């Protein structure tokens, strides 16, 4: 039997699939030119024009078919499913699925975690990517360094999860720790080094984060108060949304800042990192950051190379120091690229499933929307709520979708 040997089946598929594609394109063109509208006889000119009107659609048909059936149709079908109940034979139930979902604490946990992911992962990846891109820009072995940092890009989320599970591994108290994190942790003893590493350094990072968030939020809020700004109606909710999110972030940061100094640090005890509530989310994010930094670095590095050398030389002659050159000359010139990198990573984060699935499967308060959805669809077999959560993911993606389409259309004009 053919289907018994997957390798043979695969080979046959390649030959048949590719052959069918090529055959379709070749034969349909041949049919168009020789049979339907032959380029000879009295109507040659008109026929050629007609053939040329149809030909693009021949070229497009298979791709369009795949796009419509596999991506466009499911969006609407999922929307429809989210309004029906499978147990009632697919009857229309309005927003009942959404209500049921909203009533679940697990959903809200997923939403909260997703928000954290959405803020932390793109921010840290982009920042690290920019840092590496800048540092490697002028050194001889920069390409090697970049290639090594870029490498995790090729590693699957599952592979990366195994890699990091080894790092986070915990052994009983009396055994040697084989997870590097615990091994390092046990070296910390509450001395000056530990205070520096665990209290002062995080505090500085948190304060820096609060300052950045506050300044970004302020630049949005200022628009509401200031005169002469674009006061379009649709901008106001956006601004309020950003301000609200920023306030929440600042609150979270400040409370963790307090926690760092007040809380008792369990020195000398091996920790099961993936079960520490809230913290474990960050340990999972590290995996994605590790993978995505390379992506950010590659794009930003190209952008940095694209900055006109003259602007930098002019700044040197004007007396700018390396930090000023970086923040005042380079970063503003690649702001567009930074936004692109940020949104691209945001999209990846929204779809992140494998990491959570493989490492914690959403236990210990690490649930995210994509995994929540998978849970509902394939474990609970609740297609209604599953579809509803998929629609939530779609809603989160929509602003980026609109923005991309808007930009693409602008570029084509």
């Amino acid at each position, binding site marked *: 039997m053919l289907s018994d040997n997957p390798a043979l089946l695969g080979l046959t598929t390649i030959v048949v699939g590719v052959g069918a594609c090529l055959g379709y394109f070749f034969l349909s063109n041949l049919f168009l030119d020789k049979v339907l509208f032959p380029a000879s006889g009295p109507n040659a000119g008109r026929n050629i024009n007609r053939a040329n009107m149809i030909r693009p659609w021949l070229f497009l048909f298979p791709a369009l078919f*795949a*796009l419509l059936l596999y991506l466009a149709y499911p969006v609407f079908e999922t929307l429809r499913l989210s309004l029906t109940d499978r147990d009632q034979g697919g009857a229309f139930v309005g927003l009942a699925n959404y209500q049921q979902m909203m009533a679940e604490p697990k959903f809200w946990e997923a939403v909260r975690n997703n928000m954290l992911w959405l803020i932390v992962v793109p921010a840290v990846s982009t920042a690290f990517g920019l840092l590496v891109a800048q540092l490697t820009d002028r050194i001889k072995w920069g390409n090697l360094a970049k290639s090594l940092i870029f490498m995790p890009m*090729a590693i699957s989320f599952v592979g990366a999860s195994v890699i990091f599970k080894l790092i986070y591994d915990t052994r009983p108290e009396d055994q040697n720790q084989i997870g590097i994190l615990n091994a390092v942790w046990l070296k910390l003893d509450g001395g000056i080094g530990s205070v520096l590493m665990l209290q002062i350094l995080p505090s500085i990072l948190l304060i820096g984060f609060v300052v950045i968030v506050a300044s970004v939020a302020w630049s949005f809020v200022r628009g509401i108060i200031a005169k002469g700004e674009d006061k379009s109606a649709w901008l106001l909710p956006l601004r309020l949304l950003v301000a609200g999110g920023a306030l929440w972030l600042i609150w979270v940061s400040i409370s963790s800042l307090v926690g760092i100094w007040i809380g008792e640090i369990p020195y000398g005890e091996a920790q099961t990192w993936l079960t520490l509530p809230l913290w474990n989310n960050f340990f999972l994010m590290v995996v994605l950051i590790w993978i995505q930094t390379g992506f950010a670095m590659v794009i930003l590095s190209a952008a940095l190379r694209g900055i006109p050398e003259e602007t930098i030389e002019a700044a040197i002659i004007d007396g700018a120091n390396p930090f000023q050159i970086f923040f005042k000359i380079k970063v503003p010139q690649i702001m567009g690229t930074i936004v692109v990198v940020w949104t691209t990573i945001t999209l990846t984060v929204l779809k992140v499933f494998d990491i959570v699935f493989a490492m914690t499967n959403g236990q210990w308060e690490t649930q995210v929307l994509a995994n929540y959805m998978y849970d509902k669809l394939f474990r609970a077999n609740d297609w209604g709520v599953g579809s509803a959560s998929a629609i939530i993911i779609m809603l989160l993606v929509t602003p980026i979708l609109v923005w991309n389409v808007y930009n693409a259309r602008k570029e084509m004009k």
Partner: protein
Amino acid sequence: MATIAGKKSGLVWAVHISVALLVLLWLFPTIGLFVSSFRTADQISSSGWWAALFPAEQNEVYRAADPDDNRVADGDMFVVEGNIFDGTPRDIRSWGVSSRDVSAYQPGETAEMKDGESVTLQADGSYVWRGNDKQLSGRGQRIFITATVPPEFTLENYTTILFSGTGQDNMAKAFFNTLTVTIPATIIPIVVAAFAAYALAWMEFPGRAILIAAVVGLLVVPLQLALIPLLRLHLGIGIGKGYLGVWLAHTAFGMPLAVYLLRNYMVGLPRDIIENAKVDGATDFQIFTRIIIPLSFPALASFAIFQFLWTWNDLLVAKVFLIDATGSTTVMTNQIVELLGTRGGNWEILATAAFVSIAVPLAVFFAMQRYLVRGLLAGSVK
């Protein structure tokens, strides 16, 4: 900028050191997995993988040769000579003759014991044991050494995972399943997308701009939305769960990026060349196959790498569209996740399995990095 006068070299050093640290930090996790895959289960659970890279200090006990058979008279004394190592020599740090003080002497020193009995141990393990008739009888003198042991690695895990393992421990089938999923799912979308991209780049027809915008929009649609409707569709039309379904799904999910990437590249090809081909008498089909395809090789390669990495590394699509209840079509990512659940503590199996699954994409990555970077730059929506 190194040529600019008055530049501080301290800053340059700081840059070099920070980059080195970052690279190490980034490599560290992968190296950990790599090293662990070459250690035995006992080694992994007794010490961290980083310890395996350096020689370890180890205490060992040897006995001098049996005096009754080996002693040689030397005046009124007897002597036993020999070497404590048979075969593999160790690097002796220190040694002793009593369990209470195992590192009393350095190699080459002589341990003086009671009543003129003495043992001299050289660094190469050769010893001279000297004493009177009574002393040199019975069993051989115990010699305690503290030696440094060089790192030890084994290929056993790979043999288990690839060949001899049973059940979940054997990845061979999953490896071939993954290949079976990946190759058609990489090639077919390229063919389909290339034609569409050419039409969108170089053919005039009404609605072209809208189609391009639609492709850009579909680029970001999360495939999560497609799972249920398409699974229902596949089950409905009889494809069910299997290779055909997963090929179709991967082909379609890769399509927006493929069309977008290839169109962007093709539209940048010189217009003159395509018009010249028209003047030369080439039809659209000929222009496509003879001019566009050869010239678009870099873009085709970029997309091929993307699609290969994505399909090879995929878990979700395989779980939904491919793997049925029998599990005979499992792919590597899925098998590793299952191993994580059932054999979470068996790091030798996990690490090796994971490394087998990431080795192929890593090889592709290092071989074709140039095209991957180019594709990334072209594929991110500006």
